[in-house]
Structures are given as C-alpha cells and as structure tokens.
C-alpha cells in the first residue's frame, strides 16, 4: 500500500484519503446497497447480502490469481482464467460424479488441472518470452477446444451433496463455507503479499523487473509461480462453482474473465502492476457483484441492463487510477 502514496498528488489530505481505492470501493458498496434497497425493499437484508457474498466469493477467488499476475507486472494479465474455471469444474464434476467419498480425489484432480495450465502459461511467458496477453489468449483457445472434446465424450458430471452444502448452506456461525474459504484466501493473500519474501518479490518485479533481477530475484521462477497460482485459484473457483450450480456445463467460467480483471482494477491495482493488493480486489469483487445483482433485480430488458452495466463501469473507472496527464 505504501507505493500508492508516491503518486505526486498535491491536494488536501482529505482528498488524499478519498483517493484510497479500498475506501472508494467500500463507499460505493454502501451507496449501491442503499440504492438497491430503495429499488426493491429487502435487497440489503442479511439473507440477501449473504447470497451476494457467496456469488462475490466465486469472482473473488478468480480475481486472487488475476491479482497476482497483474501485480507482477510486465503487462501481466491472464485471459485464460475463464477457460480454467470451466475445465476444472468439468474435471471435478466427472471425478466426483455425485459421490461424497470422491471429493478429495476431485479436489486434487481439479487443482492439478488448474496448476498445470497456469504453469504452462508461465512457461510460455518466461521461457519462450511470449507476452502474457498473447500466451493466455492462445491458451484460452486451447482450453475451449478441450471443453468441446470432454463435453461430447462423457456426461458433464455432478456435484457431490457435501460440496453443494459447503458452498451454499450455513457452515460455521451461519456463514456458508465459500465465504469462509474466501476469508481464508484473503488472509492468505495478505500474509503472502506483506509478510513473505515471495510477496516482496512480486512487488519488486512488478515495479521494476530489471532492478529486481539485478538484486538477485529469480524473475522467471517468480513469473511461472504467479501464473500457476492464477490457475490454482481459478480451479478452486471452478470447484465452488460446481457446488453452487450442482452440475458443470460447458462454458460456466467464461463469465469470469472480464469481471476478474475489472475487480482487480476497482481494487486499486493498476494494470501496470507493482502496487496495490488483494484487500481492495475483494471489495472490487463485492462491488461488481452488487452492481450485477441490482441490474437483475430491476425490471428492464437485457439490452438496457448491458448498457447501464457498461456505462456504470466506465463511470466507476473514473474514480480509479487514471493515467497521468502528459507533461512537457
């Protein structure tokens, strides 16, 4: 977070506080909740908020990996997360096929799938020096092809009852397991980024790769690691999504690619990387989910919904890390 203060904004301290992305996101969340409650009473009820948080946690899990990849800089971006979510959901669904006893094996298979494709992305980006956007774009094509192959061969798979309960039913202190999982991931990310050498190195290669390399940071290994993390987080999201929807159908993950990137940006991590963190991204994921939920509550056409969604995203982006004005 300390890196955010270095931006040369000579304004009053009140304005400086208001420019904190996390604060902006929290204020916007409050505003949107109030707005939703005004539109349809009961929108901001406890039960409803819990449901929103479950949906947000799925996006938040995908965004955790996306966040690491973007933080590590050099135009880091992962366009393949949606494909990995879909594929891992199908793999997990087929391995467990509705049996509680197969859950551990399914988790293993699913996480291994995510890790494999994330690792391949990382190898392409480092060893072959393919720009992340191109590498993950190409990987997305491969994953979509794999989905077609798997879907046509075997039935698409079914969630085990225990998994479905964990995801959506109260698990501990009345909160569903997914929310606990998300909280755990949030703590893990905070610890990883602030308290470990790994985290310091992510920021280091994100803000100045060359300097980090000169200082002895294993840049390539780091980059492979963040992409592998991204694959693993996407796979965990795929697993939860399987539990949430009961069965895995082909392109369930597609809807996560764009929002996962926008959640990171709304959380205050610029796409250039090097600064920001996951706490903001979590708020960004909640913000996006509430916005989408309001739009489904309101009784308007799909067309109007999309227009308002796109326009609102643009307006919200005005609050966040705009590029610097050119100076002579």
């Amino acid at each position, binding site marked *: 977070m300390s890196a955010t203060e270095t931006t040369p904004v000579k304004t009053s301290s009140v304005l400086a506080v208001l420019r904190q992305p996390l604060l902006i996101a929290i204020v916007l969340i409050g505003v949107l909740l109030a707005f939703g409650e005004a539109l349809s009473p009961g929108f901001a009820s406890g039960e409803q908020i819990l449901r929103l948080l479950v949906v947000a946690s799925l996006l938040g899990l995908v965004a955790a990996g996306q966040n690491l990849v973007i933080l590590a800089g050099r135009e880091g971006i992962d366009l393949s997360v949606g494909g990995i979510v879909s594929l891992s959901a199908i793999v997990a669904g087929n391995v467990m096929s509705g049996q509680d006893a197969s859950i551990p094996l399914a988790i293993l298979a699913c996480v291994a799938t995510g890790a494999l494709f994330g690792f391949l992305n990382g190898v392409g980006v480092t060893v072959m*020096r393919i720009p992340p956007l191109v590498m993950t774009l190409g990987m997305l094509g491969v994953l979509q092809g794999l989905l077609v192959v798997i879907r046509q061969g075997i039935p698409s798979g079914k969630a085990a009852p225990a998994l479905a309960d964990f995801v959506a039913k109260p698990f501990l202190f009345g909160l569903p397991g997914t929310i606990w999982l998300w909280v755990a991931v949030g703590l893990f990310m905070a610890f990883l980024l602030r308290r470990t050498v790994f985290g310091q190195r992510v920021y280091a290669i994100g803000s100045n790769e060359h300097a980090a390399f000169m200082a002895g940071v294993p840049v390539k290994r780091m980059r492979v690691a963040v992409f592998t993390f991204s694959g693993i987080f996407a796979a965990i999201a795929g697993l939860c999504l399987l539990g949430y929807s009961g069965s895995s159908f082909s392109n369930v993950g597609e809807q996560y690619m764009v929002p996962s990137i926008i959640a990171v940006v709304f959380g205050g991590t610029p796409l250039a990387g090097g600064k920001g963190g996951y706490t903001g991204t979590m708020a960004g994921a909640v913000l996006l989910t509430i916005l989408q939920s309001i739009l489904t509550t309101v009784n308007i056409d799909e067309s109007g919904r999309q227009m308002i969604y*796109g326009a609102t995203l643009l307006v919200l982006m005005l609050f966040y890390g705009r590029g610097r004005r050119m100076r002579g």
Partner: protein
Amino acid sequence: MTAVAATRPPGRLKRVFERYPFLPAFCIFIVLLALNGVFSPASLSARGLTGLLSTYLALMLLAIGQTFVVYASDIDFSNGAILSLVNVVIIVFMEQMGGSGLSVTAALAVGIGVGLACGLVNGIVVAALRLQAVVATFATSIFFTGLALYVLPVAGTPAPRLFWRTYGGRFFEVPFVVFAALGIALIVYLLVRTRLVTRLLAVGDDAQAAYQSGLPVTLIRIGGYALSGVFAALAAFCVTGDTASGDPLVGAKMTLFGVAAVVLGGTALSGGFGTVVGSALGAFIIGLINALVYFVGTPSQWQNLVQGLVILIALMLGIMVSRRARA
C-alpha cells in the same frame, strides 16, 4: 533495441526483416496454403480461395483496424461489439427503408457513421479521460453489445437480396470480394502514408518523446480508435454480406481472433512497430488453419482443440522468429 543495433553490424536477414516485419507471417501463410493444397487440391482453386476470402475478409478488416490502435500501444477489445452493432443497425435500417439500392447505399453510410462514433467514444474514454485501455474497452464493448441488443434483440432479420447478391456475386467474371479486397488494399496503401499513421507509430514508440516534440498525443490516440471503429464497420458489411442476416452477438467471438491476427502478423503489442500487411496475413493464417484442420479429417469434436493448439503454436513461433530476426 537500438543499443543492440549499434554494437553489432546489422546482418542481411535483419535488414530484410526490418524492412518487411511480416516475413515470418508470410512464410507461415505460404506453408499453410501449400498444406491446404496437398490435403484438398480444390481449396486452392479460384472458387476455394474466393470462399476463404469472403469468410475471412471481415476478420482481416477487424485485424487491420486493431493494428492502428496497437501501433500507439493501445488496444481495442470492443471492435467485435462495434461490428455486431453496425451489423444490426444496417440490417434494421435496410429493412425499414425497403431494401432498394438507395437504402443500401444510405445504410452503408449510416454504418460507417456508427463505427466512427463508437471509435470516437473509445478514443475519448481511453485517451482523453485516461482510463486503462484494456478494461475501458471491455466496458464500452458491454455498452455497445447492449445497444446492439436494443436495435435487434434476437438474431434473424434477413438482409435485402441486393446486399448479399452483390457480396457473393461476380462482375466481369471476377468475384465481388476480389474487388472489395483490392479496394481495401488501395485504401490501406493510401492510409499508411498519412501523417496520422506515422504519428500513431511515434506515440507507440515513445509517448513522452512524442508529446515533448509537440505532437497532439491525445488526438492521435483518438484517431487510432476512430480508425478501428471505421474498419469494424467495414468488417460488419462483409459479415452482413456473408451471413445475409443480423445477429447482435455476431462479432463477440471475433475480437480475440483479431488480436491474435495482429500478433501473428508481427506487430508488437507494445506499440511503435508493425505492419498492416502482417495483420491481414494473420487473419488469413487463422482462416487457413481452420480450413486445414477440417481438410486433414480431424473428427469434429477435436477440431476446436486442434485449431486452438495450432494457433497457439503459430503465435509462439511467430513471436520467437521475429525476435530472433530482429536481435
């Protein structure tokens, strides 16, 4: 890059490559063309090539438009949505005007106008409001898709007979798409010699230096997005001619293939370097890969996977070869 060039005398290959950065793409293109000929001789007939051209002309135009944006080191993830919007706008317009020759001409003008307007919106949002190009154009693409759904909620309204008969027809024994391709080639030939395109490259090479030497960087970047919007409109005309109907989501899947075509063509996503010819070749490389996968007899459910793998390999090869040739 310059430091490397100064210490080492440029080899012959490097000189050739600097002059023609699309050479790797050209080689891949020729190889694929030959392979297509081996597995399906009919695909190299005039008829087969015309079919390829009429299907992939739209992707080619989308990729060409994207190239100008990428020149300035920006990116346009909304040009597929612009394509969809223009497609449904002209379809609905022509249907309401009765499908006469005059209404078709007017529809083309309206289509160009819509594409230009969308491009300007992108440019203003990214360059003037200084939002990050990737996410800002994702957001505008959602907005444009909403507009397209408003104009035509479900796919299906047919194009007037005159429209698709012209696109699929022949003049003096030569298919219309050949004339269209030649026309586009002429436009692009003239366009890349304009001040705007040179300045886009200058901005992409070093925006700060361009600004300090007095270039209106913001306006130039807006110009790049405007070009992308107009080329997306041209691409929409081709899609409309090819499919003969309106579909509010027709371009959604094309955006990323357009970006892939630009990269295949040897243009650097970091900006300041590339060619339009390369992007056009890149679009046809994607088309030839799709055709080849079909011609070698891949079982239908494996086709997407094999296409995806071959495109990924082609992207890697292209990038690695061009880096080696330039170093």
